[in-house]
């Protein structure tokens, strides 16, 4: 996965547990400054190993950690140097999700070795969007659920994210939302 994920994990641990705990994680994972270059792609094993270590530190299961990180990732990206790119990707939750694939295609021009997921809106209505998620990687559905939860927060919405059973096909998520003041 690309180094930006590592940077996000680092920021999460520092925010939740402090710099000293992060240093321990870094040491335990055998990482150095070279593993935190945003646009460089690293072996998935490096990333998953780090996620496992962080999960233990946070006292969470791997799935809980991925979901928490997914939500945090949205905030981390929006507040950091890639915030402008996020804003350009979409100004509301449906536009953002609908434009993700196109954004990823542009990113691939700079990072051709990256393996990016795909998000397709299969249905939408007022306060609801159903998204199909496709990826070469397995086991990241909790992360995706967290991402959608992060998007709800980003666009100042309240709602829920539910993974829908699709009987062996690509997983789908149902994102229900409404404005925080109770409006549509």
């Amino acid at each position, binding site marked *: 996965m690309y180094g930006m994920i590592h940077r996000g994990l680092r920021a999460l641990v520092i925010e939740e547990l402090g710099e000293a705990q992060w240093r321990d994680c870094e040491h335990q994972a055998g990482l*150095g*400054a*070279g593993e935190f270059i*945003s*646009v460089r792609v690293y072996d998935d094993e490096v990333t998953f190993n780090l996620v496992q270590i962080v999960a233990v530190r946070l006292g969470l299961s791997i799935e809980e950690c991925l979901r928490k990180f997914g939500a945090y990732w949205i905030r981390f990206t929006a507040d*950091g*140097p*890639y915030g*402008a*790119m996020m*804003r*350009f*990707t*979409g*100004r509301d939750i449906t*536009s953002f999700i*609908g*434009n993700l694939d*196109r*954004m990823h*295609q*542009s*990113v691939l*021009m*700079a990072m051709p070795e990256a393996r990016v997921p795909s998000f397709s809106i299969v249905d939408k209505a007022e306060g609801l969007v159903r998204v199909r998620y496709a990826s070469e990687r397995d086991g990241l559905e909790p992360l995706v659920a967290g991402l959608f939860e992060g998007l709800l927060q980003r666009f100042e919405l309240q709602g829920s994210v539910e993974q829908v059973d699709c009987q062996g096909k690509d997983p789908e998520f149902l994102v229900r939302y409404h404005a925080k003041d109770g409006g549509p």
Partner: protein
Amino acid sequence: MNIAVNDADLALLFPSYVRVDAGLRVVSCGPALSRLVPAAVAGARFGEVFKEEWACDSARVHAMAAARKAIRLSSRSCRRMFIGSVIPDGDGALFAINPTPMSIGCDDPVLQLSDFEPGSPIVPAIILLGMQQALIDEAAEAALELVKERQKSLGLLERLSRLAGIFAHDFNNLLSVMALNAKCLQRDAALQGQSRRQIDILGEALDRGADLTQSLMVIAQQRHDSRLPTSIDRLLAENLDIFKSTAGRGIALSLDLRDEGAVVEVSKTGLVASLVNLIVNSREVTTGCGTIRISTRLKDAGAAPPAPGVRCGEGRYIVIEVIDNGPGISEEAAARAVETFRSPSRLAGGLGLPSVHDFALEMEGFIAIGAGRGGGAAVAIWLPVASPSPATGETAPGDESRALRPARARILVVEDEPLALEALGELLEGLGHDVELASGANSARAILAQRPCDILLTDIVMPDGSGIDLANWASGVRAGIGVVLMSGFVPDASGLRGEWQFLRKPFRQDLLREMINKALDARSGPA
């Protein structure tokens, strides 16, 4: 050929499209245009939505459509421009247009990706520019973090150095007292048998302790002292105990010294500190057990291995090599080892190879990294030879005395540590000199104002003034006075006069006698 498309298809192909009728009223527009230009609603006059003169002229619009002209449109209600082309659409016209970003990169406050048609090259251009800017910001942030980390490390190192220096200096003073008194006891012929052996053991232990504190003070200074002509073999031998302490119990550290008497002009502090760094690195990669060998050899410039970014000058070099029996280092790692953000040993407690590299360059040499002969890693510091003549500085004992030197000198001893002052006084009296004692610079000045002395033997660092300042003052009021400075620290040579002598604490009695004689020889007459 006609293709039937509806408004939904148009919205997909051209998110910012506008259809107008024959009277130039808006029929429909794409979702992006509706969002960016809220005034563009069905029924609105085209000329009231966009500023261009021709937007109100139906004949011109139809002519442009027939010619499939490229056009530019500027919104009246907001600062937004669109570019594209216009084609006939029945009696009206279809404008297939794209918004233009208001700024380079992703910083446009309103635009989003889906405002552009699917194949628009503007989108990847904007994304890539945004990534570029983000990477620049990230690099700046990383550089700042690196600077802060280095400052923290340097700050900590400085505090530790100061603490170590203060400790070493004070302990050094006490060690001087013990050493001088031990020497006095050793001169007592009445001591025999067991007592003689005990006193000899005490003397030897004090000598070794003196070597350790001197090395500690060298490292504690952590700055490059003056570049002095130095015998590398002698320097390494003198600091063997500190090297062994650094390596630790599990490591067998040995010296293989063959500099053939050559001399280099080098900062002793810097060289010892660099070797300590290399030993720390070797200790870490050998995981605390193994061997480290430090060797010196004299080599020609032609034998030098290629060192990236370094021009090896002509002449001869002393090569100081630290070789361990650890896992070794790959060629790639060796080539990148001196990068400032990376060290082969992440766990190293020292500053790493970059500081050793910088030191070597400062001394007009360089470092070479490679594989040791028996596996392991070998780091070599190449330093240019200064001259074949023997090192000057601290004189070897047993120097010849001159016939004109008075047998009995008047020596003013200035030392703020009372026990050391007393011990020095007794020692010098034991050597047959007349001694006056002063506990600081002020009392020394009072004594010299009243009566002359042959020699001023003074500590440098004292609470009421510097010994160097005192010596300069004394040389003014008592012309020809011989000066011997003493300290645990090596002073900056630029503040010293050529005829002065310097004794490094703790010193041996024979060296003290020698310095006194040299100071007497250097005087130009009675003070």
